[in-house]
């Protein structure tokens, strides 16, 4: 009750606060007058009496403020007042405000843009209901989790009790294919999925239904579920398509479902077909198994159960399990983010450095301004403002600035996320469909802005507390040219140190990229057109039919004007990899997993891969000639151990129909998994000599990749090439049309992205640091004009003055660099996995970057220093 009455009084008084204020002032005046009278009566002179009365009364302004605060609404009131006052001050110095806002916008914007990616990848759950119950299940080796074969999946599914459902999927073994019907024949990447696949993910077709148990059995009816995009693109979104038959790889299949538009699985999967896994058929030994945990079952429980199941499997099929192999599981989200998480945190850390530099810069700007506002602050203190009150006002001003900067930063973020999304190499973040500015990102931006505001706003606030009214009012800001505040020096030192770290990081990545580009890939990627044709259809089932198609098509393409030569392989260089077990006739029991290529005779000529020894393939190497193979130098080195390669025989595949092949040539090594990885051992065989069974196995995992050497721009020939293929078989669609140079560029896209991103941060950081040094030195010169004048009047040379001023700036720079180099040594180790051909503490990079930073700092120091030398001693001494 008492409280309510009190509140009521507060409200009443709030409405009458001006009157109250007046009354309080009058009351105090009355008090003072009475006191004066009393003092006079005691025998003081009137002047003495007034002073004594004031002294005894205390700080009037402060007391009135305290009285007002008693009514309790002052906090909000003063806040509003501070905000209004702050806004006015900011408006009054537009150039300061503009520079500060731009700096902050860059810092907050860049940081938030990176955070939006972090949020999309690491914080946003996968786009499936209750995604936290999804587990990736796989064969667990000491090296980590790996994909699993279909027979093992069937066994796990039968045995496990931890999962509501367990599903397997694979992109190989006739998953996708050539789709006829609809607008245009097209190659569509697909996925073979087991019956519970959609149940595990928790997303079902929007139209039609999921696969039934019967459809997932071997020999079941041909059915397909289409992605929304494919349905829209090829069938115009026709709702009547459900139940209709379309042609996939020359076989009729019935469309039973269309997935919802926002369903995502893998990067560009267009259709799903039943997996039809059989215990005896290990079609894809690297298939992906996912499970949905039963409610209440923990990951650890599932892992423990899977371990037991693994041992049961080992008992039943001892030859199918390797030494030390078991079954493991991890949250599905981690499966995707594991690789990129560390990288993203590094990038976020790097951009935070940029934010800190921006903060230091704005703090510096504010200190400069605060210095010129010393008098204003001193006057306010002298008039009775409480020190804390002034500090709070400065802090409010800082926060206001931060919020404006943050708002501008959001614009940078919107633009930056779009740029980032465009730059991020495709396929790096398979689960992320878009990077948006959502509530998480907005919260982050807001918190960042407030945080920076507190950080740089507290610097002038701290300093305001130290203003000594007496000296500040006595004026003469002309302290020496050496007069700088410790705080500002500290800010410059940290700016230099932070930007050095960023620059060193960027420098290492630039060198990495340069090193990559200087790596010889082992072939000539210029003027090569490449495209894929998938021959999974029934018409080309036998090797001889496929070979006939290839030689027909190649012959036609090679005749095109502008084409020098053409060939076909099952896998392009710099484009993932494809291994087969290879058996040397000398050691028939030992399988070696080696890159395997089946090629047409002209392949080496088209790609300009050097023959080192022996001969290349020719059209004579056909079924009626003795079986042959060519290996690369890495193969010779690894497996022949100094023996004559031409004395060797080998065959390809386990339990296939491949004959023993005579090695007839050795070619130069070519890069396969990337320019930064050593060239792997490789075996080439002529397409015309590949037996049916081996060809079927290879085709499960790879398509035919054509390579065409052109005289001019390769992509210009794609239409002509398409026509020639259509002339051989009009139903076969081309896909992945691209130039070999593009494929090369794609293989270094990640390193290029790293370099661009960190380079951008470093450049911004360097610019901000330069501005920071320049600002501090300019200020020091402006403050020290009189001292410089005196020195020059006493005979100091311009040179001396120049070095006096520049020397101070360079001292700060050098201290900052020392700190930065130490920090870089500690931090660049984090970049190690991103580097190639350069050590994380590469002395050349460290030296070069230090030199660059030194030069930039020197320029930033010399401009104000030169201004100092122009000081006219007469004017400098007269002024003030």
């Amino acid at each position, binding site marked *: 009750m*008492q409280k309510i*009455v*009190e509140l009521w*009084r*507060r409200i009443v*008084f709030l409405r009458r606060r001006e009157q109250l204020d007046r*009354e*309080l002032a*009058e*009351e*105090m005046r*009355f*008090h003072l*007058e*009475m*006191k004066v009278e009393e003092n006079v009566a005691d025998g003081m002179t009137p002047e003495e009496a007034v002073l004594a009365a004031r002294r*005894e*009364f*205390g*700080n*009037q302004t402060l*007391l*009135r403020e*305290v*009285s007002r605060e*008693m*009514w309790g609404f002052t906090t909000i009131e003063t806040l509003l007042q501070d905000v209004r006052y702050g806004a006015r001050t900011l408006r009054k110095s537009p150039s300061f405000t503009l520079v500060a806002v731009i700096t902050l916008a860059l810092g907050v914007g860049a940081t938030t843009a990176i955070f939006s990616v972090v949020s999309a990848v690491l914080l946003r759950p996968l786009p499936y209901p209750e995604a936290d119950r999804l587990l990736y299940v796989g064969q667990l080796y000491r090296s980590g989790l790996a994909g699993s074969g279909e027979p093992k999946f069937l066994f796990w599914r039968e045995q496990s009790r931890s999962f509501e459902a367990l599903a397997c999927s694979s992109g190989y073994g006739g998953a996708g294919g050539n789709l006829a019907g609809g607008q245009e024949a097209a190659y569509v990447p697909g996925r073979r999925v087991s019956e519970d696949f959609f149940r595990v993910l928790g997303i079902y077709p929007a139209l039609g239904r999921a696969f039934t148990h019967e459809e997932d059995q071997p020999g079941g009816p041909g059915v397909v579920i289409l992605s929304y995009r494919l349905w829209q693109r090829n069938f115009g979104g026709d709702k009547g398509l459900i139940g209709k038959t379309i042609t996939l790889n020359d076989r009729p299949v019935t469309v039973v479902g269309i997935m919802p538009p926002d369903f995502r699985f893998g990067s560009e999967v267009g259709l799903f077909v039943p997996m039809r896994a059989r215990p005896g058929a290990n079609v894809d030994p690297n298939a992906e198994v996912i499970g949905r945990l039963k409610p209440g079952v923990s990951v650890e429980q599932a892992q423990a159960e899977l371990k037991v199941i693994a041992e049961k499997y080992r008992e039943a099929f001892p030859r199918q399990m390797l030494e030390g192999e078991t079954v493991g599981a991890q949250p599905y989200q981690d499966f995707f983010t594991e690789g990129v998480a560390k990288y993203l945190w590094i990038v976020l850390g790097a951009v935070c450095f940029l934010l800190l530099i921006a903060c230091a810069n704005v703090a510096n700007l504010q200190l400069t301004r605060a210095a010129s506002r010393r008098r204003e602050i001193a006057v306010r203190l002298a008039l009775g403002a409480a020190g804390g009150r002034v500090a709070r006002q400065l802090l409010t001003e800082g926060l206001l600035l931060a919020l404006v900067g943050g708002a501008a930063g959001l614009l940078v973020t919107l633009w930056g996320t779009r740029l980032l999304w465009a730059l991020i190499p495709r396929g790096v973040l398979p689960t992320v469909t878009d990077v948006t500015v959502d509530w998480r990102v907005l919260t982050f931006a807001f918190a960042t802005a407030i945080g920076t505001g507190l950080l740089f706003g507290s610097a002038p606030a701290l300093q305001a507390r130290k203003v000594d009214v007496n000296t500040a009012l006595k004026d003469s800001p002309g302290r020496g040219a050496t007069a700088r505040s410790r705080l500002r020096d500290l800010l410059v030192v940290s700016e230099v140190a932070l930007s050095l770290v960023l620059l060193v990081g960027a420098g290492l990545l630039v060198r990495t990229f340069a090193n990559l580009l200087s790596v010889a890939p082992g072939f000539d990627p210029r003027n090569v057109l490449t495209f894929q044709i998938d021959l999974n259809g029934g018409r080309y089932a036998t090797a001889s039919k496929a070979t006939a198609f290839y030689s027909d098509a190649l012959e036609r393409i090679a005749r095109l004007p502008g084409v020098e030569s053409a060939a076909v392989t099952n896998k392009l260089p710099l484009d993932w990899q494809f291994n087969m077990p290879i058996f040397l006739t000398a050691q028939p029991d030992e399988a070696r997993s080696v890159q395997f290529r089946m090629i047409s005779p002209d392949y080496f000529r088209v790609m300009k891969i050097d023959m080192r020894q022996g001969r290349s393939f020719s059209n004579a190497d056909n079924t009626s000639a003795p079986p042959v193979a060519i290996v690369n130098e890495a193969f010779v080195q690894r497996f022949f151990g100094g023996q004559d390669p031409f004395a060797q025989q080998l065959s390809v595949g386990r339990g296939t129909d491949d004959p023993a092949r005579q090695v007839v040539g050795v070619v130069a090594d070519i890069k396969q998994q990337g320019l930064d990885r050593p060239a792997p051992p490789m075996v080439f065989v002529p397409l015309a000599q590949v037996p049916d069974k081996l060809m079927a196995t290879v085709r499960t995992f790879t398509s035919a990749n054509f390579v065409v050497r052109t005289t001019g721009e390769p992509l210009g020939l794609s239409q002509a090439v398409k026509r020639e293929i259509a002339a051989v078989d009009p139903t076969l669609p081309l896909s992945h049309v691209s130039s070999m140079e593009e494929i090369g560029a794609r293989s270094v896209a990640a390193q290029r992205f790293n370099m661009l991103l960190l380079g951008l941060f470093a450049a911004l950081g360097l610019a901000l640091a330069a501005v920071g040094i320049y600002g501090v030195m300019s200020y020091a010169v402006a403050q020290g004009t009189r001292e410089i004048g005196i020195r020059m009047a006493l005979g100091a040379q311009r040179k001396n003055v120049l070095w006096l001023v520049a020397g101070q700036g360079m001292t700060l720079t050098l201290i900052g660099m020392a700190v930065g180099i130490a920090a870089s040594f500690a931090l660049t180790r984090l970049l190690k996995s991103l580097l190639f051909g350069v050590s994380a503490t590469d002395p050349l990079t460290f030296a070069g970057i230090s030199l660059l930073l030194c030069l930039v700092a020197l320029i930033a120091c010399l401009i104000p220093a030169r201004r100092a030398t122009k000081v006219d001693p007469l004017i400098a001494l007269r002024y003030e």
Partner: protein
Amino acid sequence: MREASAKDALLPGTLEMLVLKTLTRAPLHGYGIAQYIRQVSEDVLQVEEGSLYPALQRLQLKGWVASEWATTENNRRARYYRLTPLGRKQLAAESANFDRVIGAIARVMKPA
């Protein structure tokens, strides 16, 4: 500044009690209150005069004193404060508490 520290020696919270006690005699203005406290305490308790006013505002807010403007004997406008019934009760409570604390301190300082 030496004076200030002597004035500050007033026990915290006692200023309000002294004000309430002063007002039991008759309504008074701020200056009068300050003067009275000083005189009665024979200059030992010197209120920092200005600090009286925030205290008076607080007492009003609590509803322990009320105020109105009136003219003084020499015909000047001044704000007179008077004790409310609630203030009287508060004073009783505070002085009882005060006696207890003083008694306790006395017993410690001069044990029987």
